[in-house]
């Protein structure tokens, strides 16, 4: 594959496909970005119309047993932590519903004791009454565990591989269950088998050579579209943001390359959803609205209790995974630590105004749990 060092699919259980070749050719070939953008806009309109689906993340817990170099929630980081109670989850959910959201993403660190599967199922149950569509973004689970979450009413599963490069993956994930590359890689298929209808794949840009990572992601998308033919596949390529721990991205990807990647994915996979979070700055997000992105978050907080302040009373610090109480005075106004700093801080209403001004209709509800009940 020209323009990509080595074989990006080495060691991965994905076959090459026409779509993957198309992606690589558009991404690394001679075509002008402006031409790609025009074509991508046309494909987006044809397949998704002049609309944008909106969603919000709700962080349940920032407790984590993993030590990962790039993540603010890493066990090594002496941050303020908390796990929301089901009542607190509902308070946060109510706030987001009042903001207009009808599509919710429940996010959590990995902590089998603090955040067991039964807790996740409970969190889903407490939010499905407020949201026609609920998805989860948590550590990979077994098929039977995913079934529990689906039975509770969730329809979407988000599980980013972070990196498809085994060496970089091993280096980044220092300790904890997340070190198991293959268990994570098989998660989306187990989720599909368990009945999730919307499956989100992604790579965290900044951990390894992004050219190889993007081709691997394309191959994963292509693979899931065959294996999970009844599911809607979405993809994302979040770029690393500043977070606790101070990790510096190993490789940078320019805005220009990022935009090109969105366009290339759109053209190579015309029916895949593309998700863009508030990690990216407002100007870039606005520019990408028409070029391929189909789902955006807004007004996001990336700490548990970040929307309403719930859970503040139970904050604690962990030092190498061991819980220590906060020192006197440290409580004053303190909130749980966020996973990463949001770049686009605009509210849902502000983003909707921009969408409308660009001739895009914000869509809040595009699913109903009545379909799968």
């Amino acid at each position, binding site marked *: 594959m020209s323009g990509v060092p080595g074989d990006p699919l080495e060691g991965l259980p994905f076959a090459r496909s026409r779509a993957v070749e198309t992606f690589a050719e558009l991404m690394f070939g001679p075509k002008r970005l402006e031409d790609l953008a025009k074509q991508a806009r046309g494909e987006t309109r044809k397949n998704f119309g002049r609309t944008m689906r909106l969603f919000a993340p709700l962080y349940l817990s920032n407790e984590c047993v993993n030590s990962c170099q790039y993540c603010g929630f890493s066990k090594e980081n002496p941050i303020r932590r908390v796990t929301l109670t089901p009542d607190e989850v509902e308070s946060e959910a109510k706030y987001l519903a009042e903001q207009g959201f009808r599509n919710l993403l429940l996010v959590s660190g990995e902590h089998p004791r603090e955040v067991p599967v039964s807790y996740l199922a409970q969190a889903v149950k407490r939010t499905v009454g407020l949201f026609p569509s609920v998805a989860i973004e948590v550590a990979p689970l077994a098929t039977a565990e995913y079934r529990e979450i689906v039975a509770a009413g969730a329809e979407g599963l988000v599980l980013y591989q972070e990196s498809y490069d085994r060496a970089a993956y091993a280096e980044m994930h220092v300790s904890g269950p997340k070190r198991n590359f293959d268990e994570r890689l098989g998660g989306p298929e187990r989720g599909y088998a368990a009945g999730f209808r919307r499956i989100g794949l992604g790579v965290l840009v900044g951990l390894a050579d992004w050219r190889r990572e993007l081709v691997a992601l394309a191959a994963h998308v292509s693979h899931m579209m065959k294996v999970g033919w009844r599911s809607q596949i979405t993809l994302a390529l979040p770029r690393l943001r500043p977070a606790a721990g101070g990790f510096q991205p190993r490789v940078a990807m320019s805005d220009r390359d990022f935009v090109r990647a969105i366009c290339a994915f759109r053209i190579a996979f015309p*029916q895949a959803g593309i998700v863009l979070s508030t990690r990216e700055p407002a100007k870039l997000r606005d520019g990408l609205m028409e070029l391929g992105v189909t789902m955006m978050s807004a007004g996001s907080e990336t700490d548990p209790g970040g929307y309403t302040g719930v859970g503040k009373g139970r904050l604690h610090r962990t030092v190498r995974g061991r819980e220590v109480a906060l020192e006197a005075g440290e409580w004053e106004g303190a909130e749980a630590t966020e996973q990463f700093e949001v770049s686009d801080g605009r509210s849902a209403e502000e983003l909707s105004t921009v969408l409308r001004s660009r*001739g895009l*209709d914000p869509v809040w509800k595009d699913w109903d749990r*009545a*379909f799968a009940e």
Partner: protein
Amino acid sequence: MTSQVATQKGWRIGDRDFHSRLLLGTGKFPSVGAMQAALEASGAEIVTVALRRVDLTGRKDPQADMLKEIDPAKYLVLANTSGAMSAEEAVRLARLAVAAGLPKWIKLEIHPDPRYLLPDPIETLKATEILVKEGFTILPYIQADPVLAKRLEEVGAATVMPLGAPIGSNRGVETRAMIEIMIEQSQVPVIVDAGLGAPSHAAEAMEMGADGVLVNTAIAVAEDPAAMARAFRLGVEAGRMGYEAGLGPTQRTAMATSPLTGFLDE
């Protein structure tokens, strides 16, 4: 004297009469205003709304309800079950739609594949059978499959809605050969649904003798949706007018106006 064909005949689906032969979908529009303007300009009497975008809880959630944007006095709202993957799901949704106050008319869409949105014939037949027995008027979205069309007719489908090409593809009547057979054999209206990307495609379907067409993407994503809706309206009317006027048969070679074997009669 005005031409006879200018006063086009109405048509009937189930127990209702209609004039317009253009049905509109309501997804993918850049704004509610643009959608409403397009509906107006199209002259459509039947519009489809995805139940995915309707509030089915009965709370009339303004954030989650397309229905509030469509005047039920002006349009027959045809709920579609897009998103359903099985007969069981579609049947449940149809019942919920009625409970939410929608008419007992359903555009039955069962496509387990969310990419090409191709309809599942087996589940569609099953769901039609169940819903017809419950008194629903069912308009099923199907592959251009003449045998399936007859089977649906037998279990009481009010129309058949074969696809011209995959949804959103704008490729026109690619399934022409099969749709011709369906039009020839059908005793219920044949409405060509999906894939029509230009007014000429709609005219083509109507010239073939289709009873109506359903259009969404081509109008919704046009630079000027209302103007495109008007163009489709004219395309549909022109095509129908051509069909009713009686098109000449198409020939592969030129026909001599003076017969070559005329000497035999001399």
